[in-house]
């Protein structure tokens, strides 16, 4: 695969079975307060 390099990422599809504990931070509580971003939130079970 010399022309394609795949960066190591979490397989989001697999978290259908493993995710959803809801313990992570509410996105707007951190710093923005005026927009919504969820991708920059940490997974609580990975801490």
């Amino acid at each position, binding site marked *: *695969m010399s*022309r*394609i*390099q*795949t*960066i*190591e*990422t*979490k*397989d*989001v*599809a697999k*978290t*259908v079975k*493993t*995710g*959803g504990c*809801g*313990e*992570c*931070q*509410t*996105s*707007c*509580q*951190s*710093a*923005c*307060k*005026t*927009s*919504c*971003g*969820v*991708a*920059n*939130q*940490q*997974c*609580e079970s*990975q801490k």
Partner: protein
Amino acid sequence: MVHQYKLNGYNIVLDTASGSVHTVDDVAYDIIEMYEKEEPAAIVSAMLQKYKHLPDVTEDEVLACIDDITALKEAGRLFSVDAYEKLACDYKNNSKVVKALCLHVAHTCNLNCSYCFASQGKYHGERALMSFEVGRQAFDFLIQNSGTRRNLEVDFFGGEPMMNIEVVKQLVAYARSVEKQHNKNFRFTFTTNGMLLDDDVIEFLNKEMSNVVLSLDGRKEVNDRFRRDYAGRGSYDTIVPNFKRLVASRGGKNYYVRGTFTHHNVDFTNDLFHMADLGFTELSMEPVVCPPSDPCALTEEDLPILFEQYEILAKEMIKRKKEGRGFTFYHYMLDLKNGPCIYKRITGCGSGTEYMAVTPWGELYPCHQFVGDPKFSLGNVFDGILHPEVQDGFRSCNAYARPECKECWARLYCSSGCAANAYHATGSINGIYRYGCELFKKRIECAVMMQVAEATEK
């Protein structure tokens, strides 16, 4: 869905549904672009024609690359199918817990910033301070409605929460006194303009607050354009030393120095660099939220400038990190390996359902940006939810609620965006705040590029 873009010398391919990120050469980039539209023979022909000056681009090479793409597709890492829509609706409909409150402990402020979305802290209403009794009831409401969730968040917000710091201290003491018996772990955030911080308060905040948000717009002249007291004096010279003392004794706990940029400082990266040069390393900078008629509102003409600014920021952050003087930018914090699960990505910010704002009188609103608009009153901390029909509207907000989002590659990064921004831009919480979408997508492109840069340099 696949999103391809070129940035800072990298050819990047994102696979929306799996969250996969690939960096590819020019040939693979073009082949991926054609893969779902053309037969292999047509792709080979096009590549041989376009890259005839490159000896390594042969028929066998192109076919091998097509095979690689097919293998990635079969592994669910490219052109993967998004089958999460039903999941989003079911998860949100079945979840009835509240896990975060924004406590408006002070609807008043000692600064008079004309661009304030909260109208100088008053939220278009009367000045008021939250009593301990109302605050305590808010904590009880949160504990009672949080089900089995252990981590509960409370943001002390305003206006300026320092105007009611004694009640904040009493509420923190109350929460600490009851959290163990209910098997809860409170995480507090305090958002302040910094004017009234003294050593005693700094010690309290650094002991009790998981996160503090320190409002500073950047360079002195930029900060003092809007962030002034009622006598018209700029706040910069007071708050910067206060923030420095707070951060110096923070002991590594979370904080953000957070600014707002407007039409008057579209070169906002200079404000971020200024903050970094002051020694702050955890930074956030948000586009102003205001009506288009406001002179500080961002314009269509500003958009390409802002795109360029986000690129400048990403490149400078890579450079400074290599030099050992890196800093964090909130919107570029992307952990591709340990980031959020699919449920977080599809259910949105939780406003109106798991997250609510509480006014000084104990009224509940979907979030701080809806406070003061009676159409969005949910109830109060004493009687609970009195308007479930309002809450149902927010329960339906998810990454698939808007037709435009279903076609957007960024939907699992923003989870369909901010309901308040949508409402203010379109009159509906299910509308599209296109300007915000454009900025968001640019930020994600830059954030992913930074991850690619780091991963490929190792």
